[in-house]
């Protein structure tokens, strides 16, 4: 498995971002990136480009490297080989231009903090002496309220974060990411705790946001992805891309390899979720 080995590209997929959909320089560029924990490679020879205002879905089996890909993009991990460039510079330097919604926040469930205060954290780290000390201005509060309104959580803005449901918390975390006024919004599993009605609302929200910024969504939910995505990137040690349009079973099977059961499971879960509502 040498570095120079060409990445396999099945017929139905093209080399990442051959679409040339957007103009200008890429927002995110992975150039032959390799990463592994210890001896075990997690990502191999990843080439990837995300252009401004693209909407990209990242799918793949558990342990396939989705989260590692995101962490490389955020500059939380450094590639072992190759280069990750965000907005033309190293990923770490550009993290402030990215709004990130993590899948989990390992917070103390008794942490006394309101939804508004969580959203405000997205305003940290801006220029100016007030921001350097971490003090919020009136403008910051207005932006946080706008962001909470955009995700439909303005009525709960004074509620304790810990008392919100899983889906509501996720929406507050999306609001926090929006408060960063990002050029790229990265959402890790935004549909994990969301019911089917909320899912369609989230879907509309992301579409609207996509007019202003690029959006990268990591998701298990293939139904969600096939409706939303302009580009679908499958991560399973290597990265292959599928272009827009509904995902047929054949394409899914090709992407996930032999692990068809994983796909069936995903669908079963999402249907069950609908019935529960």
């Amino acid at each position, binding site marked *: 498995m040498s570095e120079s080995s060409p990445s396999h590209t099945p017929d139905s997929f093209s080399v990442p971002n051959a679409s040339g959909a957007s103009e200008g320089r890429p927002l995110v560029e992975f150039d032959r990136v390799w990463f592994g924990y210890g001896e075990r490679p997690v990502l191999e020879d990843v080439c990837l480009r995300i252009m401004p205002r693209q909407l990209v879905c990242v799918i793949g089996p558990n342990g396939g490297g989705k989260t590692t890909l995101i962490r490389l993009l955020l500059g939380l991990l450094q590639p072992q080989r190759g280069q990750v460039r965000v907005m033309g510079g190293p990923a770490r330097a550009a993290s402030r231009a990215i709004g990130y919604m993590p899948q989990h926040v390992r917070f103390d469930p008794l*942490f*006394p*903090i309101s939804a508004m205060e969580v959203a405000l*954290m*997205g305003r*940290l*780290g801006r220029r100016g002496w007030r921001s350097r000390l971490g003090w919020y201005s009136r403008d910051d509060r207005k932006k946080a309220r706008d962001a909470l309104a955009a995700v439909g959580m303005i009525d709960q803005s004074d509620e304790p974060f810990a008392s919100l449901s899983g889906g509501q918390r996720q929406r507050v975390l999306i609001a926090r990411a929006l408060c960063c006024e990002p050029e790229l919004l990265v959402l890790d599993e935004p549909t994990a705790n969301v019911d089917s009605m909320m899912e369609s609302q989230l879907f509309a929200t992301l579409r609207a946001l996509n007019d202003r910024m690029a959006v990268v969504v990591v998701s298990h939910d293939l139904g969600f992805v096939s409706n939303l995505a302009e580009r679908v990137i499958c991560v399973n040690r290597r990265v292959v891309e599928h272009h827009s349009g509904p995902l047929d079973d054949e394409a899914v099977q090709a992407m996930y390899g032999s692990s068809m059961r994983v796909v069936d499971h995903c669908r079963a879960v999402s249907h069950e979720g609908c019935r529960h509502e």
Partner: protein
Amino acid sequence: MSELIEALTDPAFPFLRNALFIGLLASAAFGVLGTFVVARRITYMADAMAHCVLGGIGAAVLLRYNYGCSWLHPLWGAWVAALTAALCIGLISFFAQEREDTVISLVWVGGVALGLLFLERAHPPPGEPAIEPLSYLFGDILLITRDDLRLVAILDLVVLVAAAVFYNKLAAVCFDEEFAALRGIPSKVYFLLLLCLTALTIVLLVRVVGILLVVALTTLPAALAGRVARHLWQMMLLAAVLCAALVTGGVLASYHFETRAGPTVVLLAVAAYGAAAAVGAAYRRLRLRRGGPVAR
């Protein structure tokens, strides 16, 4: 009651007034930092720092009595030891990914062992009272002097100003370290700052409740306040008020019952927490039985 008022105003008993002053002054810092410690779940780190303080006190006492450094106040040794422990513990938590608690316990016992050996070796000159290690372990308000009061006031101010200036950043780092780092906040630096401020705070009440018990006043008032507070700042305010009430009540009770002040204060705090937990549980059960919504 009149007996207490007499004791408080009697110029022959300055120690009682001093203890209460120190308690009230320190409560503000304990409320603020205790809240951060509880919310960030680093109680065991605070406890380890408190124990290391004995090493610093021992070293200071040794230098003072045996090596002629008569200017060296034991509290200075305590602060140096606490800050050193804070930096060690912070670095351990950054680099020792697993078994962090094990390595931190080394710092803990090392500090105590060193402190006791130093104290054993120190020989007070004639005219000075003999060294009583128990008074450092469990506090002794008879030893409180005006110098202590002045030092505590200054460090209290330092801690409060630093916590107020960096409030939002410290809160962000406590809540979600990774996100804070992505916003360009050096999370590790702020975590170290938090540990150092906690170290300074702990020493403020070492004279009153002693190093073995001081962690109770860091965590119990904040934990009590956390049961009802909706915001971090509310929890801090409430914890400070509770801490002041517990120290005042405990010190006065110890005078009345002629008991050691430190354990009395701490027992009062434990009783208060137990009562609050019992009331909370009873309230929840009542709500459940009536079928109403259950508050957390």
